[in-house]
């Protein structure tokens, strides 16, 4: 509930800042008259004023007194925004009146806000305020206080987070609070983590070996880093043999689990890289499979898609959450039509001369790169991720998957499924496969091969454009974005076998996995070199890739 209120307030303040920006000059209010009078009694009021006077090393006692007083008056939760503001180093006071204000940067401009209601204050000149300084000690104190406050917060999630953030600094009073709160707690996850906190405290401070042993059992299998650190710490000092044994055992278990999850993490990153490789390569696989030509401008199709995302975002700055949905089809259209254009103007005239096609498309890639450099700038551009794509999916303290990579992985499978559908279930797909297998025979059967060529090229380029949208969520968008993918994509196509979507899928993911598993051993550069060398050697053994086409189609 409170979270909603705060969000609402933030929204209002944001809105008002927009309104403020449109007004030329603030009206001539008296300086600082908008600042709210906090709804507290005089004692708290005095403490707040005290804070602006005391020196940095005396501020903690004041804060403590403030917390106690607020608890006594049961207005503690209203202090939370103040503590947070202070923790962020945004707490200031007006020099004359000693009133507290917050200063926050909005769109690069410093704006004043009231501390407790977070409303915009427009009448304060910049130099009228002074910062309340904080150091690490104060910050730590504030963080603990905030956690303690949140322990009694409304939703279980923030309660759980509060307990976790307390794990590193457990003292007797916190444990007492935790034990008390545990009685009334209903959420299972919060209860569990509270039990962990209590067990940690017991293990460290309790004199009774039996209880310590019990605590170790309670802690075994927990993946929190604090638990691990504590176990390592007490293992050395432990005198009771049984307890020591138990600690060693549970440490081993935890280490085992951690390494398991790290393995899963590596697999995830490998799959993520694989999905990127797959997306970059699949368009090339289609055009190369059907027409036997390499489009060296393929990387630039990816780049165009990424820039389309950027442009869409520039045009719709207020709809970053949804602009991606618009960018995907648009990127397909932009890159696809560029592909059709290239096919019509250049590639068609070089039919049957694959090496010349390679050179001509390389020229096109140079032109496109320079075009983007001239139009946009040689510098990299940042594309913002929508909020639903940023952040992580926390599975446990060791393993957390970044959401954007997860979405791109899903996107890769979606694209794969769609392409499979198009190629296997539509008449267009039938034509494309026929031309890929035997161009002359297809022509004899009445298939307009030149049209199929153009459509195939458009399809392949369009898919590359969609890959560009996905890539824009992972890296910066720049003129050289595509160049770095052309060799990798070709490797994937060669590895998987030409004209075979399954092969491309398997090849993309296995190369991604291989890269990520070699990387920690040899470093990123050497890993990609090793993969390159491996493929060069692989082609020696199987020139047609992992899944060669069989039968007469292969000729």
């Amino acid at each position: 509930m409170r979270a909603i209120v705060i969000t609402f307030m933030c929204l209002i303040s944001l809105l008002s800042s927009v309104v403020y920006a449109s007004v030329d000059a603030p009206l001539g209010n008296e300086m600082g008259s908008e600042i709210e009078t906090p709804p507290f009694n005089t004692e708290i009021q005095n403490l707040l004023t005290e804070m602006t006077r005391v020196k940095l090393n005396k501020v903690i006692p004041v804060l403590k007194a403030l917390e106690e007083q607020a608890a006594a008056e049961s207005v503690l939760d209203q202090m939370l925004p103040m503590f947070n503001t202070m923790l962020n180093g945004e707490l200031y006071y007006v020099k004359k009146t000693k009133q507290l204000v917050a200063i926050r940067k909005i769109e690069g401009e410093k704006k004043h806000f009231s501390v407790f209601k977070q409303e915009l204050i427009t009448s304060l000149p910049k130099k009228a305020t002074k910062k309340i300084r904080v150091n690490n000690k104060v910050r730590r104190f504030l963080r603990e206080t905030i956690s303690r406050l949140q322990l009694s917060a409304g939703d279980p999630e923030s309660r759980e987070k509060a307990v976790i953030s307390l794990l590193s600094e457990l003292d007797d009073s916190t444990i007492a609070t935790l034990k008390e709160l545990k009685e009334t707690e209903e959420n299972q996850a919060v209860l569990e983590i509270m039990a962990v906190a209590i067990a940690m405290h017991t293990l460290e401070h309790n004199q009774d070996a039996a209880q310590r042993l019990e605590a170790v059992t309670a802690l075994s299998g927990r993946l929190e880093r604090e638990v691990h650190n504590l176990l390592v710490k007490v293992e050395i000092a432990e005198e009771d043999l049984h307890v020591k044994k138990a600690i060693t055992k549970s440490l081993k278990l935890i280490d085992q689990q951690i390494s398991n999850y790290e393995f899963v993490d590596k697999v995830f990153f490998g799959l993520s890289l694989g999905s990127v490789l797959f997306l970059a390569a699949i368009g090339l696989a289609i055009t190369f499979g059907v027409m036997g030509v390499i489009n060296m401008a393929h990387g630039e199709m990816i780049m165009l898609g990424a820039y389309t995302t950027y442009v869409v975002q520039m045009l719709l700055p207020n709809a970053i959450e949804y602009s991606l949905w618009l960018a995907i089809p648009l990127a397909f259209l932009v890159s696809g039509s560029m592909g059709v254009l290239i096919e019509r103007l250049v590639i068609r005239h070089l039919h049957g001369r694959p090496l010349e096609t390679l050179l001509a498309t390389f020229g096109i890639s140079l032109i496109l790169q320079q075009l983007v450099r001239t139009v946009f700038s040689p510098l990299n551009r940042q594309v913002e991720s929508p909020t639903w794509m940023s952040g992580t999916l926390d599975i446990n303290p060791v393993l957390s998957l970044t959401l954007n990579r997860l979405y791109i992985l899903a996107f890769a499978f979606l694209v794969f499924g769609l392409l499979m559908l198009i190629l296997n279930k539509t008449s267009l797909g039938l034509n494309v496969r026929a031309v890929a297998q035997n161009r002359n025979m297809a022509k004899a059967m009445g298939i307009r091969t030149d049209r199929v060529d153009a459509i195939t090229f458009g399809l392949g380029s369009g898919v590359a454009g969609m890959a560009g949208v996905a890539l824009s969520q992972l890296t910066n968008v720049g003129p050289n974005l595509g160049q770095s993918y052309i060799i990798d994509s070709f490797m994937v196509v060669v590895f998987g076998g030409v004209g075979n979507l399954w092969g491309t899928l398997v090849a993309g993911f296995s190369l991604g996995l291989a890269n990520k598993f070699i990387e920690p051993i040899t470093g990123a550069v050497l890993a990609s070199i090793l993969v390159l060398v491996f493929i060069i050697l692989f082609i020696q053994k199987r020139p047609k890739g992992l899944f060669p086409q069989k039968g007469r189609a292969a000729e």
Partner: protein
Amino acid sequence: MSLNLNTLSKLFDRGDQPGSRTLPFVVVLLVVMVFASISNLTFPTDSMFYVTTYTITLLGKYLCFAILALSVDVIWGYCGILSLGHGAFFALGGYAMGMYLMRQIGDRGVYGNADLPDFMVFLNWDQLPWFWQGMDQFWIAMIMVALVPGLLAFVFGWLAFRSRVTGVYLSIITQALTYALLLSFFRNEMGFGGNNGLTDFKDILGFNLQEDSTRIALFVITSLTLIFVLLLSRAILNSRFGKVIVAVRDSEDRARFIGYRTERYKVWLFVYSAIIAGVAGALYVPQVGIINPGEFSPISSIEIVIWVAIGGRGTLIGAILGALLVNYAKTRFTAVLPEVWLFALGALFVLVTLYLPKGLMGFVEQMKARKLQSKQRNMQELPS
């Protein structure tokens, strides 16, 4: 004497053979070489005949590129192997020469270490890596200039040609090869100066590299090397070996069925071409004064191919002319309109492949043929 003349005229005059019109070209090149050298050395700087040392160095650089283009033409024009990684052999030759020049700096570097080049001192290395041993001897460095590219080409070619990797596959693998080398030479741990490469050279064989006379000597050596390589390539391609090479280009299967081990021919031609490229790199480095991993970048390799394509592949002379023309244009363009150069280069790629598939030399041939045709037609029409 007459026999000598006969062989000489045979070498130069068969118009339908690889490297025809070699004689006029060689003469022009020699004249330019002699004129440029003499005018730089004898005329005063304000004379209108004076050629600046900068121009000499620039010409020398172009000629190095011409040798490089020749090496690509030998395999692409005559054997149909489109290598997109020939810059790698060029750079390897250049690095071998660069290592020698680096060792010649001795204790005149910034850190004054007599044994270790500056970048190694900077990286806190305490001794030379094994592959730097002996590189202070000129003859060892020269062997390396030919051996390293040759060996790499042999291993790579043997692997690729034996398993019959051809066409676009081969092209992309060569590109991957130079890309992999690019990545590795960027690493400091490789021991080749990382990102900055090798530079700050002082002298070669005891001659100061900044001296005009050294520059001219290098230019003359480069010109003579170009002529030698041109004649050698012509001789090789006119020999029986060369005929098989052309047969492989036109129909490898047929040549194989007749009984030639085509992969062996291809490997040796590839090795020959790589060695030429390495020599070109070795001549390039002392004149330009730097070698860095940028030479390995795929784009510089593919640029070589466009020189050859523009000049006309399969003509040897065309490759040389293409390299000279494009590089002259590049120098001009990048000085005046740097951002237009990539547009122009890209357009060249597209237009040449579309409209001049045989390059400038092919265009000239075509014009000649057309003239001849119309002449014949006139002759036929006249009697009536």
